């Protein structure tokens, strides 16, 4: 196989209009490239290539409007236009790739020359096969929201000022980010593949701290539409957590019943999803990760790996967790898939060559890294308040940070708690406590499930993740931590 060499991007020089556009307008220039503009860029690139062969262009074109504040003062309100254009050239099996952020002739020409020069040092393939291109349909989740796209700098400033007010009134410090974005992403090649999917996104996260730096509260979420989130409630939550975290006490580390809020659940579960090999079926069959079978060539598909009440799935059409319905690298569609159903491992991700060779299937099953973790249908759910009431002695965790994978076989991870940690005694929160370092595995934790809540969207920029709060037994905190 010929691997690709990527040349460094050239400095951007293209002036871009500041005028916002609507998706429905047939604008020739604007915040990001439209479908027609992406096609026009692709056609120009193909016209400039030399040597024939195959060309693929990946375009990430983005307008991003952010408002950031720190220490309860507005820090920056910005509008950023980003263009990432990757040109891949393959001639007789030798491939080369280059990235650029320019769409003028000089910029594109330089990138094409870089890609074509890179492939001259790659080995060519002896054979090629004449094979007709057959496209595969994609799903069409709703990922665009006009009001989000139209939320300009003034509106962002006004919003942030309102978010800061509560902390400022209490003499506390706040910091955070509100960011809106509109993306026009395209994957086009000379074989006939054409994918273009405009999306909007909004991210809102906020931290409130006391001036002494001993108490901290955080809240955040991301979605495709501003109407799907409630920044005011987020701000109130962060403020409330900070206030309730005042004067934390030190408690002995050890094993506790813990209630993990949704963000903490995702922080712990993400290594399973984000490690490229844990859910990759060929890697798992070679023995990597917690889903590997007892001998080489086998997986735990068909075996129970998590609590029987849990379901773990990915679906581009998820009403709360929709995402772009194809792999933006080579255009492979994402289909709804249940990775784990009632605790039983059902599927692992794989590419098309593996599908053909090992499964006698002709479709890939890629991992989109967006997911929903929830109670299986028919399973009773609980609220965080109810979980607290059911806890004799435990700890309520807002989020985890610095999560590092120690052992991929068991998924043992370490990290620390932050931004809100409370002791629960006799069904009530009694006091804030100092943060801990934990050493735990999501595989262990989600097999010691006591209660599960209703899943909600959490803060994972660039992805759509929906997870529930959970109450689990014997969560291991190994030491106190200096984290706030």
């Amino acid at each position: 196989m010929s691997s690709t060499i990527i040349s460094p991007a050239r400095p951007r020089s293209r002036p871009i209009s500041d005028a916002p556009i609507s998706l429905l307008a047939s604008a020739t220039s604007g915040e990001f490239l439209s479908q027609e503009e992406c096609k026009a860029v692709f056609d120009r690139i193909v016209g400039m290539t030399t040597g024939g062969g195959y060309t693929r262009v990946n375009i990430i074109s983005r307008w991003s409007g952010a408002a950031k504040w720190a220490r309860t003062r507005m820090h920056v309100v910005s509008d950023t236009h980003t263009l990432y254009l990757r040109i891949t050239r393959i001639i007789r099996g030798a491939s080369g790739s280059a990235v650029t952020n320019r769409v003028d002739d000089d910029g594109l020409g330089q990138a094409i020359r870089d890609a074509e020069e890179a492939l001259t040092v790659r080995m060519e393939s002896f054979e090629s096969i004449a094979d007709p291109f057959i496209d595969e349909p994609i799903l069409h989740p709703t990922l665009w929201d006009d009001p989000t796209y139209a939320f300009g700098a003034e509106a962002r400033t006004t919003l942030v000022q309102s978010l800061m007010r509560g902390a400022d009134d209490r003499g506390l410090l706040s910091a955070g980010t509100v960011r809106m974005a509109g993306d026009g992403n395209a994957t086009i090649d000379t074989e006939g593949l054409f994918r273009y999917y405009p999306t909007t996104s909004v991210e809102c996260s906020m931290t409130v701290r006391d001036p002494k730096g001993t108490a901290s509260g955080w809240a955040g979420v991301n979605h495709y539409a501003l109407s799907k989130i409630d920044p005011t409630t987020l701000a109130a939550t962060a403020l409330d957590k900070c206030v309730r975290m005042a004067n934390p006490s030190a408690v002995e580390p050890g094993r506790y019943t813990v209630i993990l809020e949704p963000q903490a659940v995702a922080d712990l579960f993400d290594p399973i999803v984000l490690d490229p090999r844990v859910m990759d079926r060929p890697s798992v069959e070679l023995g990597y990760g917690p889903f590997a079978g007892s001998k080489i060539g086998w997986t735990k598909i068909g075996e129970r790996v998590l609590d029987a009440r849990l379901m773990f799935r990915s679906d581009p059409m998820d009403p709360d967790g929709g995402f772009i319905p194809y792999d933006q690298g080579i255009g492979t569609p994402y289909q709804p898939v249940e990775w784990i159903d009632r605790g039983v491992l059902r599927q692992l991700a794989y590419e098309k060559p593996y599908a053909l060779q090992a499964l006698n299937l002709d479709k890939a099953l890629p991992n989109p890294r967006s997911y929903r973790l929830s109670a299986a249908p028919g399973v009773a759910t609980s609220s965080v308040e109810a979980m607290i009431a059911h806890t004799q002695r435990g700890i309520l965790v807002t989020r985890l940070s610095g999560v590092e994978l120690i052992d991929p076989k068991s998924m043992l991870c370490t990290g620390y708690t932050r931004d809100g940690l409370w002791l629960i005694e006799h069904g009530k929160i009694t006091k804030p406590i100092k943060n801990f370092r934990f050493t735990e595995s999501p595989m262990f934790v989600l097999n010691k499930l006591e209660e599960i809540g209703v899943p909600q969207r959490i803060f994972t920029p660039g992805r759509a993740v929906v997870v529930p709060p959970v109450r689990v037994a014997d969560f291991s905190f190994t030491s106190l931590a200096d984290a706030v």
Partner: protein
Amino acid sequence: MRCNRTMWMTDTTEDVSKCLRVSATMMLGVLMFVGSIRSANAQASAPPTMHANNAPLTTRTGQHVPHTFASYTTPKQCDQVKLWSESIYWRARRPDTTYYPRTGRRYQQVTIDSVRACISRFSIATTAPTELLGLGQAYLTAASPIQADSAFQALLRAVAKDSVRGRAWVLYQIVKAYLDAAPPQLTDAERYLTQLDALGSRAAAERMLAHRTLADRAQVRDSVSLWERELNASRTAMHELQGDLQREYAPASAEVYRATAELRARQGNAPAALAILDTARRELVPLRPSVEEILGNRRFENLGKPQPSVDATHWFNVGSTGSVRPTPGKVNYLMEVSLISPQGYYEAFGVVRRLMAKYGARGLDVTLMIRTEGYFRRRLVPADTEVANIRHYYLDFLKLPITLAVWKTDLGKRDDGRVEPRVFPNTWFVGDVIVDRKGIARLTTLTDRDHEAVIEDVIESLL
């Protein structure tokens, strides 16, 4: 690297791992080449149109010219130029010159000129002692043996006051540099090897490694007497290892034992080969899993015994001898192939073509064994279509002068969805095998340029 179904049958899980990684990577490369999505198409169809890439791709300047590599700051970097330069030179040649020549491995003149231009900025006098080894290697690549030797002499002077182990390691690196040169410089290597041997038992580990490296070069030439001599010397040094060094060098010691078993197999003495591996298992205790992998012995089990016949549902190009393989009265070369990673077999096919050109008329018969997988390249196809495509690929497209034995696989599925053959014939296959006129297996080997000399000599002796 070849990857075929019988890799699963070996006792080296590392090979299996490499097999799956390489096959996945190479198939991904095939997929990336197309860059599109296919849907299932189960209809029988004519064999796909295959194209041979005959036109070389020129560089931007239209020719491959020496490069000065002015930005390189060490002599070792200059020596690495050879990898890039040879790759550029060979990349666009067709059909089987994509790979380096069989023996000798001489670099192209443009490579030599490039390295010369690069190291012209360095001199022995101004090069730090830590870079002298790289300088000597670069001089060897640049076909400047006198300067290479001067660099190595300077290096030895620089380490003259070091410990015995330190000097031994440097001498081993010098020996290795001569043996890694293209072509290998055996006389010079032996000269420094003599100095290494003179360091005695405290240099046992380095002596073991150096003699083993020389034995490998002898194997490539099928120089049996040199091969035997060097392995004996390597084993002598191995037995001088003491204490922690024995444990530290256990995998390397296992390699020496295995190389000796290969030599015995080459000499037609399968029982001796197996006995050596048993000895190794007794001596290299505690037997670590990694060491046990190295000592896997399935490749020697069938030597000296009647070769089981090849099972196939379809035979092509059988000639006048019919569809029985091994063919009585002929020397047979049985080789398993797979379309999982077709590029990995080009080197082997080059060897096969040369063998048939040399020995085909004298009674050599080469049979390729393959089984259907349920797909051909990027599409699911019915088994009959796949058989037709396989025949077309090996006989019409590659035009290999071989007999093709195809097993039409009846695929079943495991509970986890993975396909597996319900019946798997030819389970005896553990490597490409040479069978004599009486049907006795004489050698199990790999079909590549490193083993071509051995294969030729064995076939020659059997014809």
